């Protein structure tokens, strides 16, 4: 029941925000904030209740689960389940949701009700993606989160908003439909094998199929996920969408929507098609490494502050792709930490850029400079999240990237070396960004108000959580570890089978465990 509440609270909150927004512009903000706070409390309560339990080995896979028939004729049910991984992501969703509502408190002045409606529904869709255990339901939420996000970009975005929104929508919709084809392929193969036609995740897990079919269906899933992630060469929608979206849209895009891609791979693509995953892993890791370098280099070349942050996302998501397909425990733990920390740090950077744009009506770094003198508080926050983004030890991002590299090292030393150089480039672009924006000569003399108390509160919470993850990531690792283990099991078994059948081949990848 808790899980259904997690999804319906933002849905209801969104509708209320829209309706009340017609009376007074202040209502939608408060309604959304309260709804998301309730959601956050619910998620935290779940964490608190199950925290010790997660550590205990030998329990069932799901912390809590709901299964209601929806369209039984086709084997579709509302099957929601939560394990450590989805719990962390649900927490992140509620957290960034609150942050983006607060961050857009003064930015959005038009059609406030409809804005919050879209924001809340998009969050509900994302929450649904993280909790679905029925592939049809998963696809349903996967598509559901797009429409409100499309409106957020198309209606409240910046200069080229319509272009960016349409591009975003078509990229994700087309790739989603390919995933639907993959889902249906799996559905029918499972049905033909067993006579049971169902979209239920746990039942589909052990579907056996020929390796060509497995690779094709996996490709359908994978395309949807790498477009969302995004990985090279499917990333071109991202800089446009992130740049043109309003602040809250950018925060949700970077902090949550990209994560649905990573989550999809972890939860669905790898366990459902373990054979194909092993076959595709080397290629995917190469793309991950390329993405790290490519995103970082392009970030360095940007003058639009928002576009710069957008490209850093591509770079950071390269680590996620690398880690997922490295596939050992260290790397996967790193991926989870990276997902959370990138969500927070990039979200914070987008909020800062949004706040800056609200004040000086520009995102062009060439027109900035010397801003530290007029707004030291924003400068401090910018410096902090810039450093977090470059992977400063002691902050969360470092833990994530370090673990991913550590895990990837066991699989491929070359790729790890290449990926590690990405860290150097990220240092350059992050420091460059700080230098250009806050230091150096003043482009022009202006009186710009510094961060308000509201904005400082947002920054404070985000700083605190990054520091916490950076210094003491153990609770998060504990929460995720059991579910990561379960997810890895399928791949490992297949790997072991392969080794048995081919004793002569000397595989490099030895899984420590």
């Amino acid at each position, binding site marked *: 029941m808790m899980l259904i509440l997690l999804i319906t609270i933002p849905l209801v909150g969104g509708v209320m925000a829209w309706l009340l927004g017609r009376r007074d512009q202040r209502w939608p903000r408060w309604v959304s904030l309260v709804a998301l706070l309730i959601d956050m409390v619910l998620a935290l309560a779940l964490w608190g209740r199950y925290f010790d339990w997660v550590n205990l080995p030998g329990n069932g896979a799901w912390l809590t689960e709901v299964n209601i028939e929806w*369209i039984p004729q086709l084997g579709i049910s509302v099957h929601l389940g939560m394990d450590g991984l989805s719990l962390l992501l649900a927490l992140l969703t509620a957290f960034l949701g609150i942050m983006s509502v607060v961050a857009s408190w003064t930015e959005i002045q038009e059609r406030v009700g409809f804005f919050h409606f879209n924001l809340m529904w998009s969050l509900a869709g994302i929450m649904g993606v993280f909790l679905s255990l029925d592939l049809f339901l998963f696809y349903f939420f996967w598509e559901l989160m*797009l429409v409100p996000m499309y409106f957020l970009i*198309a209606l409240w975005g910046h200069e080229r908003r319509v272009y960016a929104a*349409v591009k975003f929508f078509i990229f994700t919709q087309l790739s989603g439909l390919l995933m639907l084809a993959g889902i*249906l392929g799996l559905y*029918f193969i499972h049905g033909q094998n067993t006579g049971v036609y169902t979209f239920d995740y746990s039942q589909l897990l052990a579907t056996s199929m020929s390796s060509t079919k497995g690779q094709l269906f996996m490709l359908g899933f994978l395309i949807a996920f790498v477009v969302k992630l995004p990985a090279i060469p499917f990333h071109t929608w991202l800089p446009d969408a992130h740049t043109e979206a309003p602040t809250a849209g950018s925060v949700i895009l970077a902090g949550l929507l990209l994560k649905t891609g990573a989550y999809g791979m972890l939860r669905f693509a790898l366990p459902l098609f373990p054979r194909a995953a092993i076959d595709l892993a080397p290629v995917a890791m190469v793309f991950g490494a390329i993405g790290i370098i490519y995103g970082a280099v392009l970030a360095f070349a940007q003058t639009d502050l928002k576009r710069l942050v957008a490209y850093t996302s591509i770079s950071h998501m390269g680590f996620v792709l690398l880690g997922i397909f490295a596939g050992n425990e260290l790397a996967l733990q790193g991926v989870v930490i990276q997902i959370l920390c990138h969500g927070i740090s990039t979200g914070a950077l987008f909020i800062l850029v949004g706040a800056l744009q609200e004040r000086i009506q520009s995102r062009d770094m060439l027109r900035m400079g010397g801003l530290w003198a007029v707004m030291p508080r924003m400068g401090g926050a910018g410096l902090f999240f810039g450093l977090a983004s470059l992977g400063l030890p002691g902050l969360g991002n470092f833990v994530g990237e370090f673990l991913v590299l550590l895990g990837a090292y066991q699989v491929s030393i070359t790729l790890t070396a290449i990926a590690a150089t990405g860290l150097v480039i990220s240092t350059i672009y992050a420091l460059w960004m700080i230098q250009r924006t806050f230091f150096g000569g003043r482009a022009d003399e202006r009186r710009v108000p510094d961060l308000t108390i509201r904005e400082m509160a947002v920054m404070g919470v985000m700083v605190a959580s990054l520091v916490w993850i950076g210094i003491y990531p153990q609770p998060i690792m504990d929460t995720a570890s059991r579910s990561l283990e379960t997810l890895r099991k399928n791949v490992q078994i297949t790997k072991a089978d392969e080794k048995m059948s081919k004793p002569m081949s000397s595989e490099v990848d030895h899984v420590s465990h």
Partner: protein
Amino acid sequence: MSAIDLICMLPLILIAAAPVVIMFLLGWYRNHLLTFSLTLAGILLAFLALYGISPMIPRRITGLLILDGFAVFFIGLILASGFVVTFLSYDYLKGRKEHPEEFYILLLLATLGSSVIVASQHFASFFIGLEVLSVSLYALIAYTRNELSIEAGVKYLVLAAASAAFLLFGIALIYLETGTMEFSQIGARIASTEMNSRVLLAGTAMMITGIGFKLAVVPFHMWTPDVYEGAPAPVTAFVATVSKGAVFALLMRYSLQMDIRTDSSLFIVFATLSVLSMFGGNLLALFQGKVKRILAYSSIAHMGYLLVAFLSSGQMRVPAVMYYLTAYFVTSLGAFGVVTLLSNKERDMDSLEEYRGLFWRRPWVAGAFSATLFSLAGIPLTAGFIGKFYLVAAGAEASLWLLVLILVLNSAIGLFYYLRVIVIMSARSSGEGIPAMRLPLTGSLALIVLAVLLIWLGVFPRPVIDIIHSMAGSI
């Protein structure tokens, strides 16, 4: 013909009696509201009769008609659509024409023709149904008698007559070879004996031409945009849904007698039609500046999508077609309902520019229109989503991967123009703040019902799927 046969035909008899009653009435007393009410009553009675005969089905009535679950389902769908179109028409016609009453007679006749088509199992009844439908449509399309609608009516008349000739010739050739016009026997004879396949092939090709015209699949689609644009909006809704749906249902019934997939030439023909319609409809829709023309091309593409399920062979085939048509009926009626509602006395609200900023002038109407567009695009929470899912599932079940991929690709192309309309509606416009006119009552009612249905079919499709599965089993 026994008494039970007559009872089984009651829905058709009632829907035939209604226009006769109205005609007599008009002889001595003209009243728009009364005619409107009688029309609604006629359709409602027929619908109730349909419910009443459900224990007696399936039943063959002479060699001509068959009332099985499939036929009953589609007659129900057609009657419901006729009901909605009547509702939409009332305000549309009020004050627009001095004699709006005959419109309802024609509408009832068209409904009758469509119902006969879906229940026919014989070429003779099919052709009679088709002609009743077509002849009423000629007059309906030209009913408002302005330049555009007369052009559309004439265009439809010429092309429909030509295609009917093709159809007749095709039927004759098939009759020549098989010696029968009953669907079930045609299939059996083709399967059992050696046939002069060239004549049969020519006959089938001509028949496909005739049917392709009615379905408006590429390359028989030329009339669609003009007729959609010129016809009064409620009639466009009728043409888009009932007329196409009925013919598609017949095609489905006919094709079940012979396995299309074993006959490779037929399969290739329909696959080509499907691919051409998907690409043709979607690509041409990108360049349109009028809402009705966009919807026209979109409907061409949708027929292409439907053909993918039509070409599949598994368990999902018939339910997929039935569900998709249901969703498509609701969605299209909703879309044209919005156009009807917004149109003024002089002409239909059609140009995309007129829709600019609609979201802020009439949020509810714009919301309903967006819902129908999302449904056409196949976005979750709408009927179109489950429909598209069904189509892809049917294609995947039969491993028609190439067709499925083309369908997927075309859905993405389709998004361009559906989103374009929505973006235009949500843009700012100078007209903002001008108080909007009051919307007509009956049309708004119909639209509310359609919007609710649209969402309901998308969120809670279980009851409808139940009905479809029980009805589809009988065919």
